[in-house]
């Protein structure tokens, strides 16, 4: 198993694109965090004017989704590049136990995704503090609200990136693994949501959706559910659960195909 871990680590760290994809969300988070801090007055008009809750920053800013998108490239590449460049045959000749290969990939990449998500949250916090400082404001951290929100945010990133991995594993096409979640999350599902809400004469609010009171079909959309995990109202854990179930539904056939298909 140690050889497989070393193999995966070298595969990951010896190409430039990995580092670019890991650094990009950190840089973007720093910029977005600073902007949110700097323009905090307009962000939190109902507050005391100078104090912004950290939870709102995670919930209302796009950083977690942005991070998930970039990190999903790294996760998807972990299997997609193997097929794209034929390395899968080298890998499976050296490590013929296919399920072990997958376990190591998923565990190592999962840990990396969580570590990166923690870094993104930390950078968001730091950048927001730096951004808000000139305005004389401050970032408020309410442990009872923000601790579970951060946990959900980390899990959201992990599940999002794992979905990209699972799609790549099923299709063996790295571009699909990367693009399909983005298209679904940012284009298809918002359109479906608007259509359904119009049809049911409801109203879609801004920010992260509170889907707990919405029609069942909206509560079952994977990425809408996932994004609801970043909300501070409703039942965000339920959304996260739906997101995780979608991930499992993709991961299981991906796993079976990986083990049974020709390399």
């Amino acid at each position, binding site marked *: 198993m140690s*050889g*497989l871990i*070393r*193999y995966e680590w*070298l*595969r990951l760290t*010896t*190409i*430039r*694109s990995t580092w670019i994809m890991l650094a990009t969300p950190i840089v973007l988070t720093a910029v977005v965090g600073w902007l949110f801090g700097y323009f905090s007055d307009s962000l939190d008009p109902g507050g005391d004017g100078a104090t912004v809750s950290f939870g709102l920053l995670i919930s209302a800013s796009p950083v977690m989704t942005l991070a998930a998108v970039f990190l999903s490239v790294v996760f998807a590449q972990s299997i997609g*590049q193997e097929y794209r*460049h*034929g*390395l899968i*045959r*080298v890998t*499976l*000749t*050296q*490590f*013929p*136990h296919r399920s072990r290969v997958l376990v190591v990939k998923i565990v190592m990449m999962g840990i990396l995704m969580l570590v990166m998500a923690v870094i993104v949250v930390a950078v968001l916090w730091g950048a927001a503090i730096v951004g808000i400082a000139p305005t004389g404001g401050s970032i408020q951290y309410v442990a009872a609200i923000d601790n579970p929100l951060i946990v959900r945010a980390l899990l959201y990133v992990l599940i999002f990136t794992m979905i990209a991995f699972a799609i790549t594993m099923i299709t063996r096409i790295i571009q699909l693994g990367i693009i399909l979640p983005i298209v679904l999350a940012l284009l298809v599902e918002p359109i479906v949501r608007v259509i359904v809400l119009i049809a049911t004469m409801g109203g879609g609010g801004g920010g992260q959706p509170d889907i707990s009171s919405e029609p069942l079909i909206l509560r079952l959309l994977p990425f809408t559910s996932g994004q609801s995990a970043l909300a501070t109202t409703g039942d965000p854990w339920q959304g996260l659960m739906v997101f995780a179930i979608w991930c499992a539904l993709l991961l299981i056939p991906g796993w079976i195909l990986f083990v*049974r*298909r*020709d*390399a």
Partner: protein
Amino acid sequence: MTIEAVGLSKRYGSVLAVDALTFTVPRGVVTGFLGPNGAGKSTAMRLMLDLDRGEGRTAFDGKLLKEHRHASRVVGAHLDAKVFHPQRTARNHLRMVGSDAGISNARVDEVLNLVGLDSVARKRPKTFSLGMSQRLALAGAVLADPMCLMLDEPANGLDPQSIQWLREFLRHYASQGRSVLVSSHLLSEMQLMADRIVVIAKGKLITDGTVEEFVSMSTRNDVLVRCDRPDALVELLRAEGVTAVAEGPDGLAVIGESTDRVGEAAFRAGVVVRELVSRRASLEEAFLELTSDAQGFAAGGQL
């Protein structure tokens, strides 16, 4: 270490690409793996390594590859030249490939030097020629000093000097008691390189034996006799049930007989023999003859 492939079969839809293939790759010799295009050589190699899902079993010293503790110490495979990430340097590629066996960086450098890629070790292989890519793939296969080598068309894209080097390298590798299975279309090269051959066509085994045994199956093995009265000789030979075909104004090609027998027949026929020579088919001639009905993808256009 001996490789034993038993009952390998693989079907793509209605096409049976590999059909109950059974053969052995013994230790200590280079075994050539021959077959026309589409014969199923590459598929068979992938089946042997459990990369493709099919039927059959391949044992490496009696055990499946996955039953060995370090597969990379058992078999080194080179199935395709362009198997690397174009952005990962050649050295890092080999460091990664050597992970299972815990290969040191010094060994990586040694192998890069062995295949003549030391000067481009830190270059990204996206600009490598086919020959350089073949060398990198070969380096990956031999990196962990495995007991078996399985190489699919390793000589493609190599210049004559490199092919000669490859031949000597593989023969030396096998002479250390290891098993080497090499597929190639370069039959003249294979005749020099391989001690044994496994020939397949349309997924089925044609022969599994020495090059000599295979060549002896060809009808192109004959005896040429040139004499003053070929008509008299051919009459006598045909009376004895021997096949003889006229060749030139005074020659006969006698099939399936030794020079001794033909010489004795000429003596009995009372002809003056001017030339008597045994002719052996080349591996290429034997291959073309014995697989002529089994071309998976034959060129049929008229030039």
